[in-house]
């Protein structure tokens, strides 16, 4: 039970990032490497602000806004300066490394003695001196649900339609008399906003910012998106956003299982095999459905 709860916590936190990666990778068809920089960016800005005494709940919004700006920068580099998609991500990722260090002041900022969204005076007043552990997952779940619902709603707006159209067929966006570049910038901004928000929640949950937390973030996000989407491909009643979040939980479950059973050295290999099994099983089911139909 505890095992599942901690997997859920981690999976849901990274699920917010997976939502962001889903926008760039699946909707915009843009391999956005800036994620490796914006995930710790969210964490860095959170750590710095919490140390300054900013209300932890406010940091959620600020981290999102800062990520939004960083994503817009990636978009501007790509659209306005005509830099290739991968390269604009790499440029942002590289630059953000230093920016993150500058914001946080150092490569490791612990928040053990600071207020977070999980442990603060307000919650202590509500729940007593020791805030119950189950509250963590509840808070995370609320944040994830808000992100998911808002994203779902956004995708149903006119602006959201345009965003979906630009990845689908950017010619039509031009035909609709809209600048496809601006739509891409918007998409990248929202995506990186979510990624930074995920970094913000992660920093508060693990109570530390560490510069190394961005390394491989995009890979985790991509794996979550692909696992989620292929697993739920034929279940049309499952929204893609839900699938992506579940994908993230699966990812963390694979890692947790590998850690639990594989010992110190084979973790990555076992994680990889688990992914492969999930993907093969889901591909197999797709085919069966087709045969039956």
């Amino acid at each position, binding site marked *: 039970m505890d095992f599942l709860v901690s997997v859920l916590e981690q999976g849901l936190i990274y699920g917010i990032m997976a939502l962001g990666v889903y926008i760039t990778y699946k909707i915009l068809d843009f391999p956005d490497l800036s994620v490796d920089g914006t995930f710790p960016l969210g964490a860095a800005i959170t750590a710095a602000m919490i140390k300054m005494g900013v209300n932890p709940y406010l940091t959620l919004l600020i981290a999102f806004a800062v990520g939004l700006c960083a994503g817009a920068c990636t978009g501007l580099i790509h659209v306005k300066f005509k830099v290739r998609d991968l390269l604009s991500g790499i440029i942002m990722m590289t630059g953000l490394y230093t920016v993150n*260090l500058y914001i946080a002041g150092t490569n490791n900022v612990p928040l053990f003695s600071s207020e977070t969204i999980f442990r603060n005076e307000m919650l202590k007043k509500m729940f007593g001196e020791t805030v119950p552990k189950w509250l963590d997952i509840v808070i995370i779940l609320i944040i994830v649900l808000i992100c998911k619902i808002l994203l779902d709603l956004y995708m149903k707006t006119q602006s959201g339609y345009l965003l979906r159209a630009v990845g689908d067929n950017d010619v039509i966006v031009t035909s609709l008399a809209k600048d496809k570049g601006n739509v891409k910038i918007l998409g990248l901004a929202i995506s990186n906003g979510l990624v930074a928000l995920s970094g913000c929640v992660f920093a508060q949950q693990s109570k*530390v910012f560490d510069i190394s937390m961005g390394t491989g973030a995009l890979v985790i996000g991509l794996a979550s998106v692909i696992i989620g989407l292929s697993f739920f491909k034929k279940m049309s009643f499952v929204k893609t956003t839900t699938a992506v979040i579940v994908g993230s939980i699966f990812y963390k479950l694979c890692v947790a299982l590998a850690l639990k059973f594989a010992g110190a050295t084979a973790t990555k290999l076992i994680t990889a095999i688990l992914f492969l099994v999930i993907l093969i099983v889901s591909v197999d089911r797709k085919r069966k459905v087709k045969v039956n139909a």
Partner: protein
Amino acid sequence: MKKRVLAVVLGMSMMAAMLTGCGGKGDSSSASGSGEKTYTIGISQFAEHGSLDNCREGFIEGLKEEGLEEGKNLKIVVNNADADPGTAAQIADGFVNDKVDLICAIATPSAQAAYNAAMETDIPVIYTAVTNPIAAELANDDKSPVGNVSGTSDELPVEAQLKMIREILPDAKTIGILYTTSEANSVYSIEQYEKLAEDYGFTIEKAGITNTSEIQLAATDLLGKVDCLTNLTDNTVVSALPTVLGLANEKGIPVFGSEIEQVRIGCLAAEGIEYTQLGKDTGKMAAKVLKGEAKASEMNYELITESSLYVNEKVAENLGITVPDTMKERAVETFTEITE
């Protein structure tokens, strides 16, 4: 259909791998002596790295010296986070869920993750290879623990190093240090050097870099201003140490190291930390906690009791420097060649 079979085969082989993986450990716990309690320790190592590996081995040895032996009355689970804080958090959660008797965390991010996960339980956390536990908020300013967490720091023996440099180079005035601005440990060590340098009649000339590509320029510039260089455990600089050594040798400027490996590859000498020894010290702390002789929440973190001197005679010969015989005798290890 074929694919499904393949998937099942893969899954089965994975299960087999898991079983063999656990099997060994299972045996060890069942082999424990009757009546005696078997302890379970979760070791969370942040990354695969020579010094950290030595730490881990030393830790297990230290426990053994205190009568806690793997396979007899001790079960050890080792996990490696592969340098990802997210994984480090999952490892720590996993250990807490498995209700291990003690978590040993190697390196700062793992230590913080372990402390965070175990914070509201009674599982003690013993860390090692955390350079600055105070900055990591694992200890208060007076070195007392912030919770049920204690351990050892791999802070450089700066004073011993300065003493050694003075002994070998009686006339030197300026010591140069290359460091990476993003590495908190390096920044901390520099502060220590600047604080203590005056006592030994040195001034410190530092040059900060942000990545490996800047080393060549920074080192060339720095070498024009100093009598010798000393090295920290800075990951970026250490990875490019051969470049620095090459430049320094051209000018005949001695470079001092901070650990055994650096002396092996061409630093003149080092007052360094023996990570195996550090691990052993940590293991003994852990044993005390497990046996109930002490509480992690009441133990201050410890620095290594004595630094170890390493000398490379070949380098001394090349530079035309004579290392005092007393030092040669004191040295834990003396190299007579340069391994590149």
